[in-house]
């Protein structure tokens, strides 16, 4: 898409706010609408937009395939690991009360950790799916659209 000047300029302006919004949705999910799932998607969309306009190769330089694949697993591990930490501290699996001095403080930490796990996995999966689709040689020319 080298010849689409307008798309390139607009994308450059848009990517940073999209990522910032993704972070906002991720860490503000317990106070407003949103949470890990939506944040993971929005964060991935920011990078996918970059990849569509500036080429998959530049995107793969930021997030190589193996990093994306590890992120997919890391999120689930973070989620389940939170539960195991709870058990190690003497609570039940995914009972966050033991994480803080008072019950609700522990709940806050637990929710942040768990939502981060969801976000990381969803981000990784979305990127991996995009890579699998866009990484194959296309059968259509750019002009055919």
């Amino acid at each position: 898409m080298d010849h689409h000047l307008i798309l390139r300029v607009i994308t450059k302006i848009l990517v940073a706010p999209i990522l910032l919004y993704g972070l906002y949705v991720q860490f503000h999910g317990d106070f407003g609408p949103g949470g890990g799932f939506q944040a993971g998607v929005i964060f991935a969309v920011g990078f996918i937009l970059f990849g569509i306009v500036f080429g998959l190769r530049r995107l793969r330089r930021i997030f190589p395939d193996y990093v994306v694949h590890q992120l997919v697993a890391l999120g689930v591990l973070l989620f389940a690991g939170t539960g195991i930490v709870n058990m190690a501290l003497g609570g039940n699996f995914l009972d966050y009360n033991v994480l803080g001095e008072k019950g609700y403080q522990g709940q806050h930490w637990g929710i942040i950790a768990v939502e981060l796990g969801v976000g990381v996995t969803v981000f990784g999966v979305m990127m991996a799916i995009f890579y699998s689709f866009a990484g194959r040689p296309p059968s259509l020319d750019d002009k055919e659209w």
Partner: protein
Amino acid sequence: MELVLTSLLFFALIATAIAIALVRRLFAVVMLAGVFSLLAAMLFVLMDAVDVAFTEAAVGAGISTVLMLGTIALTARSEKQPSSYSLVPLVIVVLTGLVLIYGTLDMPNFGAPDAPVQQHVGPDYIRKTPQDIHVPNVVTAVLASYRGYDTLGETTVVFTAGLGVILLISGLGRRPRRRKRGDD
């Protein structure tokens, strides 16, 4: 006012669905599918389900559109003309639709306070969230804390789905097999 908006959105939704069925250019179909998702998201907002609307807009209108466009780039741009028309599918669809509508006749009205959904655990969650968790968004409290185990399952489903896509179509090279000694 709300009734007008809701019926307007529903009519737009139906019109989009019919257009999707009629249009043969797949690029237009993908864009219309995005429009469909955005309209559905607006309906969810009207029903006060902001979190669901958020997901619908991000996944349905955002990422699905991109993935569908990627699929078109790999396959074909327009739908093939069917060789023959038959009435059987139409009859099946109409019958199924009628059965579904008949099923909704018994359901409680939208937002009815005496609906079974509103009387089970919902009121408990709403009452206890401010004391137990101190979080203003009850949806997050239910998803991440009260029902954390379910969400762990959901995340695992997303993980498994991603794994399946990676294994099936990412075209990662096979690991080079170790040569056996007898081969050379």
